[in-house]
């Protein structure tokens, strides 16, 4: 017990990977064993991160549960882990969504061993990004997460999976090239990759590097960071990998992809871009806000245009993550003001909320896809009487995604809108315009969500699904169990958000 309390983070981080290694020795054909083993293995980090959550002291500044091990002394990189309120909420989201996603993939019967192993490796990769306090480690985990996801899409995806997985891989790799270079620049300059040290020194760094003014270097490095994260978020116009990857990935893959992987990008903005480049972020905040608004509006329109249910949900991610970036851009404009903090609170909460609702939506799409083997909205219609429980859950989750007050999405969207509009009113008028345009996206969020419900549940019943071998079966207990934690959290955050927002808020106040 003592070991765990002093090595809590590394235990959470490496437990899934170790479990995956243990899985190597499980017999090959025992699908049931693989599933239960993986589920149990992913519940351990979840329980531990609950311990982490309750032992975390939000009012204390800086990182907590820090751990430091030598990793690559020659270049000044070490395995430095730690969490603050910002990363803690993301760690909780990851460890919560992974068991849920694994439970959601119990319907998979093809090469379960490899599948479950990849999932556990994926969890380690994602957690590593959120916990790393060392730039090189950050980058390593950033790339580690990519590989399992590639194989999950490529091996267990649907028809167009080769194209989608390649696009996902190339896009993300392309984005992170610049990141690697910029990280190396910092490493070379400061002889260390430690995030805290670099943050202190780099933001105030002014000496020319190799005869080139520091500001040029900073600008280039800033964009290298931004593009890497923008691809992941994804920000317009770097978003086109997302609909393909989400649509083709297996259900649980989409859940994790939307639920956690997208957050890596936004987290990168918060953890690295804002602290490392306050001046550049402020200077280029207008451009960021523009792209964010474009993501919100075009994401909503793009979603509205879809006839494929899963693609519709996938585009909604572009729309929702746009709000995260809008909040970040607003905060970059007016760092330190109350408006900026509100915007950041909203952005971070929106990350968490989108994790819940997007995962839920993808799962629900998966539920109906498993039964009907189609995602074409035109082939559904009037299914509500056949699957009332499913319908209720779908409407509930859709409403969370739509941002209905009383559910979680509203709180975060309101805070973002309030924050960025506040920046517009109190400091930079152009933000008010951006916010106002973003409202158009909010309007069309309603349009596409209602379109989804309308085409699937409402209207005259499509008799094809009512009788015989195609008869649609109701959502089963396992699937309800998957949805229950998500729905409870959605409602809980919607009604009483301060349990999580307080932690986020304190972190934001201390960080920015």
């Amino acid at each position, binding site marked *: 017990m003592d070991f765990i309390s002093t090595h809590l983070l590394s235990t959470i981080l490496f437990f899934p990977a170790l479990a995956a290694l243990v899985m190597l020795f499980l017999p090959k054909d025992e699908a049931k064993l693989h599933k239960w083993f993986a589920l149990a293995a992913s519940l351990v980090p979840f329980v531990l991160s609950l311990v982490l959550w309750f032992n975390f002291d939000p009012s204390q500044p800086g990182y907590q549960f820090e751990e430091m091990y030598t990793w690559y002394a020659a270049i000044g990189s070490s395995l430095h882990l730690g969490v603050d309120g910002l990363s803690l909420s993301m760690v909780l989201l990851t460890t919560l969504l992974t068991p849920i996603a694994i439970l959601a993939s119990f319907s998979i019967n093809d090469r379960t061993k490899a599948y479950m192993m990849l999932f556990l490796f994926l969890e380690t990769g994602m957690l590593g990004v959120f916990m790393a306090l060392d730039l090189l480690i950050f980058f390593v985990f950033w790339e580690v997460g990519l590989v399992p996801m590639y194989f999950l899409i490529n091996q267990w995806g649907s028809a167009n999976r080769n194209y989608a997985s390649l696009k996902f891989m190339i896009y993300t790799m392309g984005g992170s090239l610049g990141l690697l270079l910029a990280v190396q620049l910092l490493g070379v300059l400061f002889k260390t990759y430690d995030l805290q040290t670099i943050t202190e020194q780099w933001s105030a760094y002014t000496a020319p590097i190799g005869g080139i003014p520091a500001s040029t270097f900073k600008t280039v490095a800033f964009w290298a960071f931004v593009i890497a994260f923008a691809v992941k978020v994804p920000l317009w116009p770097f978003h*086109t990998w997302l609909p393909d990857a989400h649509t083709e990935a297996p259900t649980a893959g989409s859940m994790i992809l939307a639920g956690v992987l997208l957050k890596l990008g936004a987290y990168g903005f918060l953890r690295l871009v804002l602290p490392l480049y306050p001046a550049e972020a402020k200077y280029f905040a207008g451009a960021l806000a523009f792209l964010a608004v474009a993501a919100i509006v075009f994401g909503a329109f793009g979603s509205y245009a879809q006839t494929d249910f899963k693609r519709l949900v996938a585009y909604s991610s572009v729309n929702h993550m746009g709000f995260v970036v809008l909040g970040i851009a607003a905060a970059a404009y007016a760092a330190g003001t109350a408006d900026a903090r509100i915007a950041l609170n909203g952005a971070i909460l929106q990350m968490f909320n989108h994790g819940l609702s997007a995962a839920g939506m993808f799962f629900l799409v998966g539920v109906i896809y498993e039964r009907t083997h189609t995602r074409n909205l035109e082939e559904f219609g009037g299914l509500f009487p056949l699957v009332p429980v499913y319908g209720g859950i779908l409407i509930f989750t859709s409403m969370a995604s739509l941002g209905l007050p009383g559910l979680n999405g509203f709180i975060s969207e309101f805070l973002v809108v309030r924050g960025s509009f*506040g920046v517009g009113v109190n400091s930079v008028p152009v933000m008010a315009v951006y916010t106002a345009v973003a409202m158009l996206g909010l309007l069309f969020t309603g349009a596409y969500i209602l379109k989804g419900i309308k085409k699937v549940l409402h209207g005259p019943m499509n008799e094809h699904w009512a009788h015989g071998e195609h008869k649609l079966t109701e959502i089963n207990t396992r699937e309800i169990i998957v949805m229950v934690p998500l729905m409870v959290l959605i409602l809980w955050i919607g009604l009483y958000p301060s349990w999580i927002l307080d932690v986020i808020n304190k972190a934001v106040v201390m960080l920015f």
Partner: protein
Amino acid sequence: METTTLIWLIPLPPLLAFFLIVLFTNRSKALSHTIAVGAAALSFIGSMIVFVRALGVEHLGEHPFESAINWLPTGDTWFRIGVLIDPLGAAVLFFVAITIFMIFLYSVGYHNYGQPAGDHDVKGLPPHGATVTDEHGHKHVVPSVEPMYSRFFAFLGLFAFGMYTLVVSDNLLTLFVGWEIMGLCSYLLIGFWYGKPSARDAAVKAFMTTRVGDVFMLLGIAFLYSATGTLTFREIFTEETLHALASTPAWFGMTASGLIALLLFIGTVGKSAQWPLHVWLPDAMEGPTPVSAMIHAATMVSAGVYAVIRMFPLLTADWNGHELTTTMTIVAFIGAFTALFAATIAVAQNDIKRVLAYSTISQLGYMIAALGIGAYVAAAFHLITHAFFKALLFLGSGSVIHGMEHGVLHTGNHHVDPQDMYNMGGLRKKMPITFWTFLIGGFALSGFPLVTAGFWSKDEILADAFGHGHLAVFVTLAIAAFLTAFYTMRQITLTFLGEPRTEEAKHAQETPWTMTTPLIVLAFFAVTYGWVGISEHFPILGGLVPNWFHDFVGHTLAEVPEAPEFSWIPLLTSLVVALGGLALGYLTYRNVKSVSEDKFQIPLLKNKYYFDEAYNFLFIRPAYWFAENVVYKFLDKGVIDGFLHAFGPFTQGTGSALRNYFDLPVINRAIGDGSAEITYWFGGKLRGIQTGRVQQYLMLALVTFIVIGAALYFFVFAA
């Protein structure tokens, strides 16, 4: 119990009922409606207690019931939410509680509780009736119970929760929460019979149209919050804050307060179905009739007006008391225009509920116009009287429809539309309670002098408009009032008077007690509620009963608004338009036998000025076209993916160019193969000297040695 605790608790029973029904009692109809009606009763009792206690507090305006908790951390401060009951809140809570409770009760009867399940009824479609065999072996078709009976009560509970939340909120954000929850419920309930494409589309239309207003409202809330740092009403409505807002210039030549009020007002335009966002409300008639009553009278549309009344100090923050500000002008214009515009459409409608729907829009326009000209108390007064008589009218029309459905089931002719007034006639004998209560409601709506509540509230608005010199508004509203009386009498005449025009109307039946009781209760208030707000300057009657309403609600504001001076002109006007409209309506439609004799079936009015078509053409289709063709196909698939897909071949092209024109010829051929070939050729030439003879080698070595030695000697050592 502490009054504030009680206020916190008021919205909760319906919410609890919603969850209980959805999660547990869905299968049991009896249990579900017991829970729901019980919850409504609990909230009703709580509201009444709060109301009575509020009456007992002196200077409630300055010392309202309020309580708040920390809710959202925002930087160093907390955003607090809480409850507030001030005079306005108390008055609104009173009518909301009564109407909601009545509607819950009414729904039990409306959805045929206790009747057998239908023969062919399916979820998602209205019930079609069930065949039963009596003791003599005769088969009868009787109304069948709604297949989604429990679900209806669950939604209704959530709806009630939304409205109560909105009323007791002490801040704009929770008001907005209640506001949007009602939006969801209206979506769910308008689309209750989702199997019908028309209902489904109406639900989406209602949600989307109100959402247009809502996003502006959200922007207004964000603006207000940014500018003042709070959303709590009593903190905003302080002298300093309002003054600061009124003196801050914002965009478009308006002050901050004016712009915020305008943004918030656009929310109301959506929610209260004002022109140009009125299109959803008539379509909302697709829902079951109790829902129409709920939406149109008790809750949702009233919420819109309530929000503007709430924000009245903000709306008038930069008002000097005479010249209307830009925002107020817009508000007054939209209100007055809507009042007239909707009234003209109502004249040409034949569906009994649609007439009421347009009359609702028109009456809401009245209130909005009143607010636009600064008539605070009059607007609040009309809001409440209207809620009573409009709930009454809707429930009455539901009762009529229900009675007609009896007739339809009896004859078995399902082609007869039980909602078309031209299929009715003479129902006063078949449905006496419905007739008399409907008559009261209709007269209240028309503003029948002295006895009905509608007269007093409408008169006050007209008096205010006239008294403050807003003649354009006055004239518009007067014409609208005339039309209102006219179409109301048309409706009553076509429905209840004369002789039955169809076989079905002959077999209509009075509805059960669960439906008639609410009618009687509401009819009582539709008459008496007017007497609490009789102007003191009114001839003879004024002063007999104190103008309690003005005194009570007026104290919500820091400065109690003065009632306008009495003048005979508006009074006579309202007498003439009300009585004249009623008389003309009766005379015109007394002998009309069929729809072809109706002189007001003007296509332009019948088609609601073609707004649906225009919006479809101007907004909906272009939006979809933009989404599909521009954003998805052109930008994403074309430009961005096109760029990517071009990038793939580009890299591939570069790669193969490098291979074909550099790697293969230069590296492979020239350098790689070339060096080998040169060595090979050279070796071939040289191999002749390798004879295998030792002595030759030695000889060669000797010669070389001598040559090199000589060379060294001559060129290095000797030199």
